[in-house]
C-alpha cells in the first residue's frame, strides 16, 4: 500500500511527479512558438530569444536556488516556484509586446523552472534517502522528468487543437499548480525526528572553496558540460541533419520521440546501476558508449532505420548522467550542500548545452555540414570517458564527518 511507503520512497515519488510536471510543461514551449509569434506580431527569432533567455536563467539560477534550498528547505522554494511558474504562464497570455514576453516567459518562468526541478528535489532527497538507495531515487526522479518531457509535448499539441493557445497555456498553468499539493508534504523536521545537526549557514563558504580546489569536482563539471553539449546538439540539430539525407520528417519526429521514451528507461537504469557499481566507472562507461553509438551512426548510411536505432541507443544514454553525476557530488561532499554544489555542476551542463546548440548551427552555416560537430561530439565523449576514469572520487572526509 502506498501509504506504508517509507518516507524516502514517498519523497522520491512526490519528487518524481513534481519534476515530471515541471519538466513536462517546460518542454512544450516550442509548440507555442508560432501562435505567440503571430499573436504578438513579432518574429519567431524574438520568441526563440525569449526561450534562450529562459534556458539561461534556468541554468544560472540553479546554484543560487540550490543554496537557498540547502539553507531554507525545499518547501518554500517549491511553493514560490510553482506560483511563479503559473503566474509566468498566465502572464504570457496577457502580455502585448516582446518585452512583456521576455519578462513573463524568459525571466519569471525560467526562474520558476530552476525552483521546481532536479536541483531542488535532489537537495531534499539527498537528506532523506539512504545512501544505498540514492542512485535509484535520483534515477527515478530523472526518469520522471523524461516522462514529463515525453508526455507533455503531444498533450500541448492536442490542447492547442481544442482551444486557443492562451487557453492551452492556462490549462498547463493549472496543471503546474498541482505541484503545490506535493510541495506541502516536504517540511523541515522537528528536533524529535532528526538526530542530526544543521550546520551554520556560514559553513557554505569553506565547502565551496574546497569544492573548487577539488580536481574531482572540477572534472565532474567538465563531464557534465559534455553531456549538455551532446544533448542540445542532438535535440536541436538531429532533425535537420536527417533532412539533409532525405529522411522523412515523420521518421525524424519518431526518432526524437524514441529518444524521449528510451531516456525514461535509461535514467532509471543508470540510477539503479549507480547504487550497485562504482559511479565514476559507470559514468565513464556511459560516455564511452555514447562514443561507440556516434561512431556506428556515422559509419552506417543515414536512413530512417538507422535514425530510429540511433534514437533508441542515444536515448538510453541521454540523462543517465544525471543520477550518476549528482550521486558523485553527494559522494564527494556529502548531502548538506548538495543543492548548491550540484547546482553549479548543472550550470556547466547548461553552458555545454548553449554551445552545442549554437555551434551546431554556426558550423553548419560556415561549412555546410554537421560532420565537424559530430566529430567534436565524439571526441568530447572520449574525453569525458577518460576524465571519469581518473577522477578522484574519494569522499572529502572532513566535510562528510562534520555533517552528522
Amino acid at each position, binding site marked *: 500500500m*502506498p*501509504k506504508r*511507503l517509507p*518516507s524516502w520512497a*514517498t*519523497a522520491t*515519488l*512526490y519528487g*518524481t*511527479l513534481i519534476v*515530471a510536471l515541471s519538466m513536462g510543461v517546460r*518542454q512544450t514551449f*516550442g*509548440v507555442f512558438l508560432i501562435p505567440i509569434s503571430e499573436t504578438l506580431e513579432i518574429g519567431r527569432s524574438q520568441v*526563440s530569444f525569449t526561450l534562450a533567455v529562459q534556458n539561461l536563467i534556468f541554468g544560472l539560477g540553479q546554484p543560487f536556488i540550490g543554496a537557498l534550498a*540547502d539553507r531554507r*528547505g525545499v518547501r518554500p522554494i517549491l511553493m514560490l516556484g510553482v506560483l511563479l511558474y503559473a503566474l509566468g504562464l498566465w502572464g504570457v497570455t496577457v502580455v502585448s509586446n516582446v518585452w512583456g514576453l521576455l519578462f513573463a516567459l524568459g525571466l519569471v518562468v525560467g526562474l520558476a523552472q530552476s525552483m521546481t526541478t532536479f536541483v531542488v528535489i535532489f537537495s531534499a532527497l539527498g*537528506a*532523506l534517502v*539512504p*545512501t*544505498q538507495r540514492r542512485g535509484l531515487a535520483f534515477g527515478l526522479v530523472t526518469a520522471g522528468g523524461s*516522462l514529463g518531457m*515525453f*508526455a507533455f509535448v*503531444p*498533450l500541448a499539441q*492536442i490542447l492547442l*487543437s481544442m482551444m486557443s493557445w492562451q487557453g492551452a497555456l492556462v490549462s498547463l498553468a493549472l496543471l503546474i499548480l*498541482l505541484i503545490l499539493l506535493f510541495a506541502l*508534504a*516536504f*517540511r*523541515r*523536521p522537528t528536533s524529535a*525526528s*532528526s*538526530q542530526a*545537526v*544543521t550546520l551554520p549557514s556560514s559553513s557554505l563558504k569553506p565547502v565551496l572553496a574546497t569544492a573548487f580546489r577539488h580536481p574531482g569536482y572540477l572534472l565532474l563539471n567538465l563531464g557534465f558540460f559534455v553531456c549538455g553539449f551532446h*544533448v*542540445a546538439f542532438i535535440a*536541436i540539430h538531429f*532533425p*535537420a541533419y*536527417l*533532412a539533409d539525407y532525405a529522411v522523412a520528417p515523420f521518421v*525524424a*519526429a519518431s526518432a*526524437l520521440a524514441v529518444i524521449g*521514451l528510451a531516456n*525514461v528507461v535509461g535514467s532509471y537504469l543508470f540510477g539503479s546501476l549507480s547504487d550497485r*557499481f*562504482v*559511479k565514476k566507472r559507470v559514468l565513464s562507461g556511459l560516455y564511452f558508449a555514447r562514443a561507440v553509438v556516434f561512431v556506428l551512426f556515422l559509419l552506417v548510411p543515414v536512413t530512417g532505420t538507422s535514425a530510429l536505432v540511433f534514437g533508441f541507443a542515444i536515448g538510453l544514454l541521454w540523462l543517465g548522467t544525471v543520477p550518476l553525476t549528482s*550521486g558523485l557530488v553527494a559522494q564527494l561532499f*556529502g*548531502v548538506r550542500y548538495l543543492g548548491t554544489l550540484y547546482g553549479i555542476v548543472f550550470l556547466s551542463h547548461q553552458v555545454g548545452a548553449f554551445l552545442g546548440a549554437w555551434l551546431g548551427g554556426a558550423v553548419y552555416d560556415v561549412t555546410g555540414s554537421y560532420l565537424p560537430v559530430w566529430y567534436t561530439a565524439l571526441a568530447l565523449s572520449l574525453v569525458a570517458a577518460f576524465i571519469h576514469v581518473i577522477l578522484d572520487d*574519494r569522499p572529502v572526509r572532513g566535510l562528510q564527518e562534520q555533517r*552528522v
Partner: protein
Amino acid sequence: MTDGSAVLGETELPAFAQAVEGDGLLTWIAVVALVLLAFGGVILWVVWFAMAPSIQLTDPTWFFLCS
C-alpha cells in the same frame, strides 16, 4: 557499498534539513498521475501522429523537444 559513505556513518542518515509527510490519498494521486503520464504519453503520441501525419522539420517545435 561502492562509495565508501557507509564508513562515514551516512547509511542511517536522518533528515537533517528535510522531511516529508506522506499522505495515503496524496500518494495514490501521485502514483495514478505517473501511470497516466506513462501510458497517456504513448497514447498521446499515437493520437498526435494520427492527427498530424505530415510533420514539418522546419517547425521549431522540434527544436525544443528533448532539450
